[in-house]
């Protein structure tokens, strides 16, 4: 991993050792945890999963499972999969991705069963509502993580995602209320995000100021500016400046698709901003790996000197891609105000930009994986509030903490492989 870059002599030895044991040990820890929770601390309750909402056209019967019996089955399966991982490791084979996905899904189902079975208020978990809410929470995270991926792939670290989201939310609320048009608000959100990105790009690319310092200070600046305008302009005249209810995007369910159980309410009953997020992820993914733009973007982030040699203007490429990221993050911020009809509030993004940054790293700087990470983080935070609602034994803050813990483990190399673009964070100074 890291030492590969520094010392080529140890590459082969290191790679064999690292590929072999990290996954099985991770599996073993989770399997041990599930044995403890799902079997050791299981309740005798029956967990009920409600799979469809009351007004859905296709109704699925609620699923009842005995918490202890089902939990034991899941735990045993997890232990078996851990065994498979260890066998693969001793044969020096990498653990396939699908195995990890199956393992993770099993653990989540087992965890939900355990948590619902042991809950004090009700043992019924509204799975449909849980999934439907997940995407809503994840939308700004997805936009933010796309902005992060584009910036970092071009070699500029974007700590200012938080500021871009916040300024986007502010700009959208302000302009949409003043013009009465959500479309104007959406454009304003993108412009607001670009403004923050321009400052970041100008300082880090033109003046070679450290990108992390710039990002941190920009977040402070945007928080101060928006709070200032909020109290100086908006609180006195909410009808005139801060009432996005009249100019919000409404939800439009896609006929047919929105009736699919579980997935329908999750993906196909969104506002325009929600659908746009899915499109943006797919387009970014395609463009990053299949177009000239993507190749140039990645080249200035991986090896700027080489890119320069073949005639790519490194700093101009970086500048405009950071700006593009700002526009995307700004639109993500719009989902807070004109996406839901909620008035702008001071610091209303509440650290979502940092979760988006976490999603970038956990998603290994790939738009698709980062979006999936954002969905996962949206799911855990939504699950946290659901679990506290049904009186589950797990305090919701531990669910809210999960993205951060996972990210610490990821950057420490314990979960997955996190290798940033080679020139990430380093300004390019043409000699």
């Amino acid at each position: 991993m890291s030492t590969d870059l520094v010392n080529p002599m140890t590459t082969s030895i290191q790679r064999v050792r690292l590929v072999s044991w990290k996954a099985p040990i991770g599996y073993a820890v989770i399997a041990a945890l599930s044995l403890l929770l799902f079997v050791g601390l299981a309740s005798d309750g029956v967990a009920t999963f409600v799979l469809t909402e009351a007004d859905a056209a296709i109704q699925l019967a609620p699923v009842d499972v005995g918490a202890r019996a089902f939990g034991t089955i899941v735990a045993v399966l997890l232990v078996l999969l851990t065994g498979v991982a260890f066998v693969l490791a001793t044969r020096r084979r990498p653990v396939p991705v699908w195995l990890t996905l199956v393992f993770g899904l099993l653990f989540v189902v087992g965890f939900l069963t355990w948590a619902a079975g042991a809950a004090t208020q009700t043992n019924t978990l509204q799975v449909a509502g849980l999934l439907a809410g997940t995407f809503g929470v994840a939308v700004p995270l997805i936009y933010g993580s796309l902005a992060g991926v584009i910036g970092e792939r071009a070699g500029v670290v974007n700590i200012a995602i938080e500021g871009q989201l916040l300024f986007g939310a502010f700009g959208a609320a302000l302009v949409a209320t003043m013009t009465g048009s959500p479309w104007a608000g959406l454009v304003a959100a993108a412009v607001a995000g670009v403004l923050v990105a321009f400052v970041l790009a100008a300082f880090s690319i033109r003046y070679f100021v450290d990108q992390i310092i710039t990002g941190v200070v920009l977040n402070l600046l945007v928080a101060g500016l928006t709070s200032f305008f909020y109290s100086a302009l908006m609180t006195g005249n909410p009808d005139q400046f801060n009432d996005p209810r009249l100019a919000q995007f409404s939800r439009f369910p896609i006929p047919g698709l929105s009736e699919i159980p579980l997935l329908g309410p999750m993906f196909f009953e969104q506002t325009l901003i929600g659908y746009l997020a899915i499109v943006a992820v797919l387009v970014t993914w395609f463009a990053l790996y299949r177009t000239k733009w993507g190749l140039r973007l990645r080249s200035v982030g991986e090896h700027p000197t080489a890119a320069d040699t073949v005639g790519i203007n490194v700093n101009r490429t970086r500048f405009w891609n950071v700006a593009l990221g700002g526009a995307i993050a700004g639109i993500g911020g719009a989902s807070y105000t004109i996406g839901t009809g909620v008035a702008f509030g001071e610091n209303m993004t509440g650290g979502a930009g940092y979760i988006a940054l976490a999603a970038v790293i956990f998603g290994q700087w790939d738009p698709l994986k980062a979006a999936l990470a954002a969905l996962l983080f949206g799911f855990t935070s939504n699950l946290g509030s659901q679990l506290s609602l049904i009186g589950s034994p797990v305090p919701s803050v531990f669910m809210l903490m999960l993205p951060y813990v996972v990210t610490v483990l990821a950057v420490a190399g314990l979960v997955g492989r996190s290798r940033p673009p080679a020139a990430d964070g380093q300004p390019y100074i043409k000699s």
Partner: protein
Amino acid sequence: MSAVPPVIDAGQPSRMNAALQRILNGNWLVGIVAVVLSILVGSVLIAVTDSGVQAAAGYFFARPLDTIAAIWESIAGAYAAFFRGGIFDYRAATFAEGIESFAESLHRSTPLIIAALGIGLTFRAGLFNIGGRGQILFGAAFGGWIAFGTDLPYVIHPIVAVLVGAVAGAFLGAVAGALKAFTGAHEVIVTIMLNFIALNLLVWALNPGGPLRGQGSSPLTPPPPESSLFPFLFPGYSVTAGFLLAIALTAGVWWLLERSSLGFKLRAVGENPAAARTAGIDTKAITIIAMALSGALVGIAGVELALGETRRPFGSSIDNGVGFEAITVALLGRSRAWGMLAAGILFGIFRAGAVQMRIAGYSDDIVTVVQALIVLFLAAPPLIRELWGVRPDGRRKAAKA
């Protein structure tokens, strides 16, 4: 940012080190220009959002002097309130009452100075502790736990709280340092994430039935007993013994950085990790020590916020933005111990003045804007030169026209 390749093992000093060194070595003139420019921008913001100015601007072409008078009134009013709150209240009956404002500024600067000392220490070692918020929360939580959880005599009680808070903060810092040293995890990412982990842990501890939850219906701690509070220095003034502690810590950090052998190693690692390692300095150990020391100082700032500044039951917003503001103080003070003391007092004046501005009907958030702008301008001396008409490469802009 390289999340994995350990900078301390890289062949050459990282770019961040170079950027930090430049910020640290810039001259004082740039600092003064940065402050003046930021206050100018703040004035513009105050003027354009003032309702009197907006009303007068409506008939600007009929009576332009009205607009100018309204602009002057709004800006002068805001800064007069700021001056009354942060430096000297000229409306007070006696000098002793008027100077209470400056005492309040010193009081408000205390946590900023202590936290900035911690963050500046990591800058000197080429690291970036951005986990001030989490370390303050940890320090406040554990210091507070000593305050209302134990029964100790006066003087001893706050000292024990400070020590425990320092250990708690040091633990959080050391986690980031150890992950950096042994796995190469970038300390910026780790400390950001630890901020939120600490915040959620504190929220959990303040939930009903949590270990820090007080009696009331809101998520606050129990009230800290009188014996645990930092004593006031003078009757009638808000400044506490915490300010003396801040000065003592400033002297300590100065000695550590500029005179001790550990400080020499810290600076050596900060300026050129590869050379330091070649010279036989254990860069991994230094990384962990620097982050732990930094966390300890920031943790003490957390205890001061709880037992010196707040003095009442506190919740999870006890950090009050100090964790991030301390970064700006450390940058403004150029990571020199006495420079950070001065910068901390300046920002303490900002914090105290902001309160009076809010009372006088102005938005105090403008102070945050001005603070952030100061650091932005400060971080880019070429920008200031360019605003003066000199291009970053040294040529005059006028030649272009």
